[in-house]
Structure formats: C-alpha cells, structure tokens
C-alpha cells in the first residue's frame, strides 16, 4: 500500500476506547437504566448519555445475536476501525471493552497533488481470543481476591461492588497494551522447576513436616524464584486457574523482594546509604517492569498488589515501611511485616478460591457461574520468602482455628522461627536442581524457538523472549521473533484451539518462515523456524527433536 508519493507515516497501536462492567437487570426501565452501569472507564471523559447509549448498543447486540445463538451471545464485534469484546463471567454481569484498532496514518498526495491522510486499520493484528483471555484473567484475578460480583452484591450491596470494581480495575485498564495479545502473553501457563526424584521426596517430606506442625494450614505451595516446585500431593483443592492467579499475584512481590535484597547487599558494601536506597527504589521499579512486559499487558498482576494494598492499606504501609528499614526478619511477602506488631494490625489477605472440579481436563476454560457460586471457599493467603525459596500457605477461613491463627502474631513468629531453622537443606537441594535444569536444554534454548505447553498441568517451557527472560538469572534473555511471526504463531494457536481434531499444523509464510503447532495428549509444542530454505521434511526433523526433548522434560 506504500505509494511512491507517500512522505511519512505514523503507526498507532491499538488503544482503549472504553471499558465497562454492567448488569442489565439492575436497571430494567428507562429511568433506572443508569443503575445498570457498575464500572466505566474511557480514555477521555464521556457524558452519561453516551455511556448509556454504548451500553444500550452492547445489550442490543447481545439480544440480537441471541436470536440465532441462544447459548453464546455476541462475543466480539469487528468494525472497520474498532473492536468490541464481551465477556459474561457471571450471569447477567457483562464485562465489555471497546478498542480502537491499530492503524497506520499515511500522508500521501492525491491525484491533484494535494496532501491527504490515508488510514489503514489492522483488524487481524488484534486477536479476539487474546482480548477475551485478558478479560477472563482480569475477572479471575478480581474474583480470587474479592469474591464473586454476585456475592458482594448480596452481602454488601451494589455500592460496595462499585467501589471494589473501581479499586481493582482503575489501576490497569488504562495500561493495557492491546498490541501484545500474542501467544507469549496469553498462554498463561505455570513455570515448573523440573526436580530430581530425590528432591521431590525431600520437598514433600519438608511440606508434610510443616503441615504436621501447623495442622490448620490446608495447602502449601513451594516456589523457587518464580517457578513452581510443589503444589500439593495431588489431592489439593485449588484449581489451576486459581493457582495461576495466586502466582501472578506473587510474581511481582518476589521480584521486588529480590531487588530489595540485592540493593541491600550493595548497601553493605558501599556505605552511601541514601544514594543507594534511591537506587534500590529504581531497581524496584525496573524489576517490576521486566515482569510488566509479560504480565501487565494481559494479566492484572500489577494491579492486585495495589488492590490488596488498597483494601488492606496497613499491609501496604507495613511493606513499604519494612523495605525502607530493610530488616532481614521480614520474610513475609504476604503477612505481617514486623513480628512485633499488635494482633489488631495484622490484616491477612483473603482469597476466594473455587473448589477444584475433579476429572475436568479443561480447567483453564472458565467454569460456569453456578460452579463459582456454590464452590467458593475463603482462605487466608500467607507467603514467606527465604533466599530463592518461597512458601505459600493457605489457611481456610471456615476453620475456627484457621481464622484465629491468621490474626495471631504468635503464629507468624513461630512459623518464621521454624522455617529459618529448617529450610537450609531444602534451599540447597533446590538450588542444585535449579542449576542442573539450566544446564539441561540450554543448548536447545539457544538453537530453537519454541513454546511448550502442557494443558493438563499448565506447565510451560519456552526459549522465547519474554518467557525465558523471567528466569531472571538465565544468561540469555530468550530468543526473539518478529512481530509478524508472533501474530502468525497466535493465528496458529487460535486454530488449534478452534479445531480440536487437528493434531499438527505446519505453515510457511510468504516471507518464508515456518510456524509449527503439534499436539498430543493435551501437550502442545509450538515451533518457529525462521530459516528460509528448508523443506517440510527438514522442519519436521527439528520438531521431532524438540518434542522428544519436551517429553523427557515433562516426564522428569
């Protein structure tokens, strides 16, 4: 579309028009229509009547499409310039986003030589399922830390819900980067640390011992850096989705803490305290920025901390207070920052988890509202970090003992003492396994561009930036692919999702790179081969090597 007369073009990424959450049953008449609106944000101020018209249109589209598709109403609308995406996480509650498509403005001359602007919109660079996933993840994060919309309305009223929504969504809706709805962002799997058999038994006995000591802790999750090490003994009651939400919430906390600790070491070396605390502060930010590439775009992980802090404001103050003190004793990522605080100052973080539906293979497909309704259980979430080891404790609110302990400073003191004296061994073992895992497959990671995803346990492994970059200590930051490849990879991913009977797809673009998706038993391997002169059979060789490797990793 480049014309020789073009003398300038501006690329504009997709951006938010408006985002709304509404419930049409709250305002059935024309006078009460405004009551439907629960949350609304737009990039510019919008008068109420315009908001109402937008909601009216959304509802009109939903009703119209229901005439043909009664079960699944309107999911998205493509127009020449915009995209609308709808998500109904709970019955009659609609999350709805309108996005202006990415476009290129070109200054050209028309026939008479007069300058004119030509705008070209890129509909297919905004992936419907990617945006849908963003909305789903946003809702899941909200629900895990706030409970369902409906339960809030029932217990606290609509006003309380509006306040909660405002607190939760306002921080990140405007920061969405819609041009990054690529596969590397929307496949939100879990990074596992592959363990040797001896390490596995050490970790589980370590966890068992803690649970013997503290019987009211129903779940313990073990992390190494940002990788999952241990997630219960198979009878756990947390769904993978909720686990992901918790991990997403912890990710920035862990890296913040890491940055703090590194800053602290430096501080010990040079004594210029003031300068360095500033440095520590900036590093703090850059640390979270590293993650933001992965998460802020699609997952609201940057916001839940904010939200948590907002609702547990004392917690936030405590954390920031502790970070300025840099006292080594505050090992709780979530929990009290001082061990000497009063019980009344302890505001443990509550999470609302769904009971795991057993025998459900497609756990990452959102369950129906009913399941959410009847299966919500409240827990207190406590996280403790020592070295690269992070332990996450879930204490059921339903147990009277759990409730009292969560507010009891002696519990935190005791567990801190227990862990600081018992975890050295386990840290050593995990560190060895971690070093080993880095060596294993590091050659592959340099040679092949791939993403491996196991749908059964959401395990993910990839050599691509930014997956690999979140390794932190890994020497390479991961291999890069072009934007075109990333979009093509996503197209292929959407096809595999859409056509469950396909087991293999190989595509070669007109610019000659290959993209491969191969699936078996819920495991999917994506490979990008940016070589120009290779045949189908040669690409297959690469894929075969990689899938063998991924199988060995997966089974270890």
């Amino acid at each position, binding site marked *: 579309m480049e014309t020789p007369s073009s003398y300038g073009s501006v690329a504009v990424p997709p951006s938010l028009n408006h985002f709304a959450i509404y419930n049409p049953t709250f305002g059935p008449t024309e006078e009460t229509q405004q009551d439907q609106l629960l949350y609304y944000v737009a990039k510019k101020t919008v008068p109420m009547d315009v908001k109402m018209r937008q909601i009216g249109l959304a509802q*009109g589209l939903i009703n119209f499409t229901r005439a043909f598709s009664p079960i699944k109403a309107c999911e998205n609308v493509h127009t020449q310039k915009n995209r609308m995406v709808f998500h109904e996480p709970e019955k009659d509650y609609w999350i709805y986003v309108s996005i202006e498509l990415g476009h290129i403005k070109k200054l050209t001359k028309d026939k008479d030589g007069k300058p004119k602007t030509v705008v070209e919109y890129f509909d*297919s660079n905004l992936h419907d399922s990617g945006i849908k996933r963003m909305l789903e993840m946003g809702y899941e994060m909200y629900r895990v830390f706030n409970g369902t919309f409906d339960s809030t309305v029932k217990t606290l009223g609509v006003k309380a819900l509006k306040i909660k929504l405002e607190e939760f969504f306002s921080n990140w809706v405007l920061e969405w980067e819609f041009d990054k709805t690529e596969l590397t962002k929307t496949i939100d799997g879990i990074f596992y640390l592959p363990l040797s058999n001896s390490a596995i038994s050490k970790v589980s006995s370590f966890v068992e011992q803690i649970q013997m000591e503290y019987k009211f802790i129903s779940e313990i999750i073990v992390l190494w850096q940002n990788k999952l090490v241990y997630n219960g003994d198979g009878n756990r009651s947390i769904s993978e989705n909720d686990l992901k939400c918790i991990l997403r919430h912890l990710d920035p906390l862990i890296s913040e803490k890491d940055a703090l600790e590194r800053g602290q070491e430096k501080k010990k070396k040079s004594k210029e305290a003031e300068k360095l605390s500033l440095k520590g502060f900036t590093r703090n930010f850059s640390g979270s920025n590293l993650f933001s590439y992965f998460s802020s775009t699609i997952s609201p992980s940057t916001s839940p901390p904010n939200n948590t802090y907002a609702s547990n404001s004392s917690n936030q103050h405590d954390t920031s207070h502790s970070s300025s003190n840099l006292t080594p004793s505050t090992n709780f990522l979530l929990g009290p920052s001082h061990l000497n605080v009063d019980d009344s100052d302890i505001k443990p973080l509550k999470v609302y988890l769904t009971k795991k539906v057993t025998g459900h293979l497609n756990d990452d497909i959102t369950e129906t509202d009913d399941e959410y309704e009847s299966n919500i259980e409240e827990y207190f979430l406590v996280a403790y970090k020592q070295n690269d080891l992070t332990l996450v404790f879930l204490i059921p609110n339903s147990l009277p003992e759990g409730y009292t302990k969560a507010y009891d400073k002696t519990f935190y003191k005791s567990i801190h003492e227990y862990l600081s004296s018992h975890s050295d061994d386990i840290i050593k073992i995990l560190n060895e396994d971690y070093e080993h895992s880095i060596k294993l497959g590091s050659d592959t990671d340099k040679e092949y561009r791939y993403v491996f995803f196991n749908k059964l346990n959401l395990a993910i492994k990839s050599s691509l930036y930014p997956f690999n970059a979140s390794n932190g200590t890994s020497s390479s930051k991961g291999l890069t692919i072009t934007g075109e490849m990333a979009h093509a990879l996503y197209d292929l991913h959407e096809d595999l999702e859409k056509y469950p009977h396909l087991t293999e*797809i190989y*595509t070669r*673009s007109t610019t*000659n790179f290959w993209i491969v998706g191969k699936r078996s038993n819920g495991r999917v391997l994506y490979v990008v081969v940016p070589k120009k002169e290779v*045949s189908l059979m040669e690409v297959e060789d690469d894929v075969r090597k990689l899938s063998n490797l991924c199988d060995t990793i997966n089974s270890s």
Partner: protein
Amino acid sequence: MSPIMEEILSDSNSILTSDEPLSPTLQPQRRLKSRPTTQISFDAYSSSSSGSSIKSFNTTPNKVDTGADYLLGLISKSNSNSATSSERTKISPFHNVKIGKRPHSKIMLTKEASSEEEELAQQNICIDSDVPLDNNGDDSIISRNDISVTLDDKEYSGYRRKYGHEDPQSITWSRHRKHFFILSSAGKPIYTRYGDESRISSYMGVIQAIVSFFADADDTIRCINAGQHKLVFLLKGPLYLVAVSRTNESEMQLRDQLSYLYNQIVSVLTTTQLTKIFEQRVNFDLRRLLGGTEPFLDNLASTMSDEPGFMFSSIQCVRMSKDLRDKVGSIMQSIKPKDLLYAMLITNNKLLTLLRPRKHSLHPADLHLVFNMVNGSSTFRSVESWTPICLPKFNNKGFLHAYVCYIASNVCLLFISPDKDKFFECSEAKNLLKEELSACNALQEIEKASQNEGYSIADIGVPGLRHFIYKSRTHVQYTSPAFVAPYGDPREKQKLYKLYCYTHDRMHSRLRPLKVHYYVSSTETILGWITCSFELYAVFGPLISKSALTSSSHTLLRWIKKEEESLFIVSSPVF
C-alpha cells in the same frame, strides 16, 4: 400497476441513456424490467392476469399454451408489472411465434408443449434439492428420492421455497446453518433465504439500527462473532447484505458470498437503476422489482455453499480433448452471429468452451452469474430464451442480452450480445451450430463429455491421494476430481469442503498470507500450497508421512501438467 411502478419504469429509459457506456455498441438500450422472471412477459391468454395463470392450468390442463403459462407462473410470482408495461408477445401453440415490435419484448419459444407434468416434476425436484445440500451436517439430509412429486393446486401456484412457510420466531428457522438477508438502507426487507420476507421486518429493523449506530460514528460494522455463529455485513450503497452463518466459513468467504448475491441483484437491475430507485424513494420496496428472481438468489445461496468456484473465484471446465474443444471452438467461430460479445457452451456449471472478443475477457464472477441464471430456472431446458442480463464486472451500469438454449440434453449454448434485437440471428446461428456439430460428430462427443461426472481420483494414480482442488492462476480455472468414496456421501463431502474453506482462508489471509499450509486431523491430512502459478489443495489420509505426501504432490502436479490442455481451456478462441 401501481403509480410507483410506472414512474420507475418510465424513468428507467432516461437513467440508462444518461449513462456513460463502455463502448457505443455495448451500450444498453433497453428499458429495464424486472428480469429474469419477466423474460417471458407474454400474458397468459387463458386468464386475465398472470397471477391467476395457475388456475387456468388446473382447469384446462390439456391446453398446450398453459404449459408455457404454467412455467411462467412457477418462476414468476408477479409478472404483471412488466407484462402490462410492455407489449405482449403472443405465443401460439406449436411454434408459431409472433414477436412484438417493441424493442423490449421478450421471446420464448415453446418446444414441447405437452410436457407440463414432467416439467413440473422436474422443477419441483429442482427447487427442493437446492436446500438439502447446504444443509449438510445438519440432521436433515433429504435425498432426491424422498421428495414427493404430488401436484397440489395451491402449493405450486408460484415459486415456493422449501422453508418459505417457517416462522422467523421459531427455532427451526433460526437454527438454519446459513441465513442470508438483504435489506434496504431504510430497513425494508428485500430477501431472506429462509422464511418469508414480510415476516422478518423486526430483525431487519434491528440490523438497520445496528448498522446506523456505527455509521453515525463514521465507522462500518463488518462482523459479529457469537459462539458458533458469525454475522457478516456487507453495505453496498442502498443495500445492506447480511450473512448469519454457523458453517465455519470465514468472514472473508461469507463477505465474498454476499458480494455474489449483490451481483445477482445488479444483474437484474443494474447499479444505475438501483441507485436511482432509492434516490427517488428511500422507502421503496425493492421486492416489487425483484419479484420472481428469488429462485436465482436461492439457487446462488445454495450453490455457493458447496461449489469451490466461488471461493476460488475461478471456474471449472469440462475435461475433454483439446482437439475436440478446438473443433467446437472453430465451428462456433464460423457461425457466430453479428455483434456478438460472448458465446459459450456450458454444462453442469462447467465451461465447455468460450468465444470472446480479443479485448474483453470474461470475469469468473460474471460467469458464475451466467451459470446461476442457467441453473436457477429449468425453463431454459425446454425453450429458446432471450433475456436481458447485467454482468457487473463487465459493466454494472447496463444490460446485455443473452440467448440461452440447450443444444443437447445437458449442453447449454449462450450467446451474449449488446444488441437487444439479435434473437433471430442467434437462433439461426444455433441451428447452424447444431447442424455443423452433428455433421462432424462433435455434438455427440460433447454430449458424452458432459454426461461424465468428472474424472476419478483413481484415474490419476497418485498414491495416498484422496481428493484435490487445483487452481491454475494463469488460466483462472480450477480442476477437481469427482467426489467419490470416502467423500461420496453429502455429509462427508461437506466436511471436506469445510476443510478446504479453512485452508483457503488461512492461505489468503490479508495481512499474513501463506505459501504452505499443512495440517493433520483425525481423518485427513491436507496440504495447501500456493506458488505464483498455481494453488493446490490436496487431501490425503491422516497417517501419510511428510515425504510420501511431498512426492505424491509432485506426481499430481506432473499429471496436471500433462493433462493441462484437457483440464483447462488454455486458449479460448477470440475474434
């Protein structure tokens, strides 16, 4: 006739004369009427108006002329509009033809006047069998044998759709796999594939409201996704076309299909006429002008669902030896009437040969409209017809005139001329052509070729290959073997067609087109391969290795190369 009608019809002359013609000889000179149903615009003489023509059929079934009359009634709901506006052509039994002096009169010669019942049965089957094919994958596949051929006085008093009676509020209506709606920008229903236009007004109102909401914001709605359903919009000036589909076809493919429907309307009215009508009366009910052309829209709607030519924007040729094709071509060349634009022989939606002026090729989209016209009405099988047609890619502003006649049981001859008065020349040329073709035995040979169901995959002898579609980009033609086992069953065929659709769509993505698209499903392995000269879509079994697939594909390409001259029209005769 309503005053509006008169106004429009009287205006039409001035509209057309004010056009800029493509070339003086090609300028359409005739006045518009609602074609093609009104192609036969003579009045039934046994009754006062054509509306009651069927009655006369029933009351006087032995009268020869009612046979023709009946045919008229069958495809034409209301030809009274045009019939009254033009001088009537009187047709007397047994080929005594009298032609009206007015330039707009249209002619039909009854060939076999006594076969009403047979015709009826044929027509009946024709109408019914349109739908089930599209219905594949649904639970209701109706075979031809299931269709009862009972004569019901009321049932066939006009063209009846299979699903015409359905209530738009019912689930059976909304669950159809692919709806097409055409409405005016004022929200007036013009066409619906299922049900009755007059009963879908409320839906059309909502569509109109949705379209204008986005239009107000200087935006254009293109597509809505809802579960399995896709709603695709095409806004063409005064017409809005909407597809509501759960066939898994892509937005692009559905929009192409809407374009074809739009072209079909243009082929009846021309864009000039269309624009003019709505400029004068935004609220105009276009059904009054299109009345009777529903069979063609219906036929197009169902053909598009399983005929790859639309998606590939190309046409298929009858496989025959180059010598025979050349021989037929040169005979056609020798007998062609004066002022001819195109001459062609077609059979079963396939092109046998095409004769064209050096300067003008024929766009596949226009050819599809011609095919659809010939297939949309069985009238052409029994009579010589002379009908106006607008070929939008050739010139969307004016009419051409088509002479249509079957010269063998399955072989249809078309002469397309810019001159409205060439019926007799064409008819004579046809007789001459028939004579000469018979003389050298070519007629029998092409008849034989036309009766072939196509070649079989077994003829090719490529190991592992189950089916394929090959499009020659240079010739804008495609070739494909007959659908035999495992794709003999319509349901399996439709499944395969879906896979072709998916591959085609992926490979022709606007932003990210592909050269190779290979995938394996539980039942098939599909290879899509596009180079600068061809597009190949080949189907293999699910377990074939990549090396076997590669070598088989090359074997296939060699076979096609060898057979190129019989599979494709490599050089159509020009004048």
